[in-house]
């Protein structure tokens, strides 16, 4: 989801001098943290994995801040204003699957196996687990080819924010934003990225908590606000009511177009897709032991609750505020533009000092996400494709860090070009493409590789390719919302989708993931297992609790 022009309205009424000063101080602190990362980076493990000794709080905040982009706050907040509190199911999955399952079940095993195999990136972990250069390079190519589109979406959002705040040209804003982020990523590596993420995550956390508190005070409290929102059910626009919406405090009608869209695309697509995101999974390998992950679960759970539930609650409840003050629904007040609902609400309902805090919150959300994307793309190009794929590991020491730095600069250039030149529709669809293909291609072999000795090299390869292709084809020719934006189906067949409803509303993950799982299992059953010596090395200590702690 891509915010078209966040905070245009809010910025216009804020004191520009205060914004400039606060933003400059913020950038200086970010710069210092990036420099600190640079000074404490000596080896390739420092650069790629933050030395494998990052503090659990920093790890948890970095994981959460990377996960939550501007679009998650502005975009999904706007969706909640339109469709209501059903999105809270996504928060449930984000916490239970995205934090608890991810950290406790996958994270500890990922960390241990990464150490056993001396893996420094997510593609390298998968490649070494299945002893397959094909998997390693293919996974890196997926990251290298598709993540720039996703990063371009985040970059465009951040640049729009800068353009609106400082009243500057969009090209200048895009270049400046990307350059600031790329500088501290290139210099500080993952250590610099995670330190800045932690600060940015803290700002985001405070900003969202304050937003929640002020919002409920504006509508007369939690219960009163929800009651008033429930009473607005009769105001649901005709088009939405016809598509299954029953109000802002009720789930859409079962089986309706809105229900399919909310449950498969938003709740399942994003809620489960997060498990196989390379830029998130690599963070499990940055901590020293399973103990740090236990501690990070506590911080991560609270952080994600606040970061996801608050926009959905505030977005929904903003309808009560707008109805009370302007006699209109939030989306109508925002001129029908979902991405303008939250900015309009902030501008209308919040004190001016909060506008500054909220802008820092959005800037932090965008920067923390894109810095991790730059790092993941850079390591995919430099470490995985060039160093391990083309040079077959014949690059070591300082040269290895240099290669990754060059990779990040290449990623920066590609992302910048895409953000400036690609049509907004394709950029918006790119996020779905990246989430869908990553989950379908990587999740079965990632989970299988951590838990099961029986997944074979051929099974992992076949499942990865099948899931990748299934997700891409579904996105281009079946999932109407994405296919419409990608325009391939329209060009070839003069239709938005080749399949009828409800299939055209179902997220690619729901189709491609089962295909990938079935392919992985079927091929693994028919092919030879990896040798026991290799499996023993991969799984040594994996899933076992240390004694005496």
């Amino acid at each position: 989801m891509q915010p078209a022009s966040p905070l245009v309205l809010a910025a216009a009424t804020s004191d520009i001098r205060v914004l400039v000063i606060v933003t400059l101080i913020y950038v200086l602190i970010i710069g210092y943290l990036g420099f600190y990362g640079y000074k404490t980076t000596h080896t390739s493990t420092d650069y790629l994995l933050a030395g494998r000794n990052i503090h659990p709080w920093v790890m948890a905040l970095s994981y959460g801040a990377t996960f939550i982009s501007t679009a998650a706050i502005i975009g999904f907040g706007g969706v909640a204003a339109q469709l209501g509190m059903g999105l809270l199911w996504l928060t449930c999955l984000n916490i239970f699957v995205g934090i608890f399952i991810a950290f406790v079940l996958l994270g500890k095993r990922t960390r241990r196996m990464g150490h056993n195999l001396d893996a420094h990136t997510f593609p390298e972990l998968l490649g070494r687990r299945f002893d397959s250069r094909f998997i390693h390079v293919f996974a890196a190519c997926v990251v290298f080819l598709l993540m720039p589109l996703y990063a371009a979406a985040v970059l465009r959002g951040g640049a729009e924010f800068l353009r609106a705040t400082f009243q500057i040209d969009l090209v200048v804003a895009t270049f400046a934003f990307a350059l600031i982020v790329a500088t501290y990523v290139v210099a500080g590596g993952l250590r610099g990225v995670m330190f800045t993420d932690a600060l940015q995550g803290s700002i985001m956390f405070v900003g969202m908590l304050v937003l929640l508190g002020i919002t409920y005070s504006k509508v007369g409290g939690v219960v009163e606000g929800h009651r008033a929102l429930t009473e607005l059910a009769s105001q649901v626009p005709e088009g939405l009511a016809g598509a299954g919406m029953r109000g802002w405090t009720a789930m859409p009608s079962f089986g309706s177009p809105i229900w399919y869209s909310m449950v498969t695309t938003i709740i399942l697509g994003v809620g489960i897709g997060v498990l196989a995101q390379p830029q998130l999974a690599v963070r499990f390998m940055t901590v020293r032991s399973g103990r740090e992950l236990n501690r990070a679960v506590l911080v991560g759970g609270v952080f994600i609750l606040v970061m996801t539930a608050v926009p959905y609650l505030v977005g929904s409840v903003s309808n009560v505020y707008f109805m009370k003050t302007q006699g209109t629904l939030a989306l109508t007040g925002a001129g029908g533009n979902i991405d303008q609902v939250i900015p309009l609400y902030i501008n209308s309902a919040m004190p001016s000092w909060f506008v500054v805090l909220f802008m820092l919150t959005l800037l932090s959300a965008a920067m923390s996400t894109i810095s991790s994307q730059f790092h993941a793309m850079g390591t995919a190009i430099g470490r995985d494709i060039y160093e391990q794929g083309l040079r077959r590991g014949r690059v070591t020491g300082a040269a290895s860090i240099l290669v990754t730095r060059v990779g990040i600069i290449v990623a920066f250039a590609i992302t910048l070009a895409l953000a400036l030149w690609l049509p907004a529709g394709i950029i918006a669809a790119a996020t779905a493409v990246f989430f869908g293909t990553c989950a379908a291609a990587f999740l079965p072999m990632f989970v299988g590789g951590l838990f099961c000795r029986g997944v074979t090299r051929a099974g992992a390869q076949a499942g990865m390719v099948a899931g990748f292709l299934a997700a891409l084809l579904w996105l281009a020719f079946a999932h109407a919302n994405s296919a419409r934006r990608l325009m391939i189906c329209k060009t070839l067949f003069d239709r938005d989708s080749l399949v009828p409803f409800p299939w055209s509303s179902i997220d690619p993950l729901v189709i491609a993931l089962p295909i990938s799982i079935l392919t992985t299992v079927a091929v693994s059953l028919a092919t030879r297992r990896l040798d026991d010596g290799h499996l023993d090395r991969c799984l040594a200590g994996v899933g076992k609790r240390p004694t005496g702690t």
Partner: protein
Amino acid sequence: MLGIPDPAIWMALVLCLASTVLCVIYGALNWNRDDDSVCESPDRERAWEKEEERLEEEL
């Protein structure tokens, strides 16, 4: 519950809070468990890694 009549919504809200409580309790109960760090100290590991890289470059 909480002014929300649809159980499917308030249940989501309750499960959000329950999931968070689960994370907090798990983190608190296991605060000092699972210290399976392979090396004794990061400094020692770094020294080892530098030595490895030096040897590789010499080779």
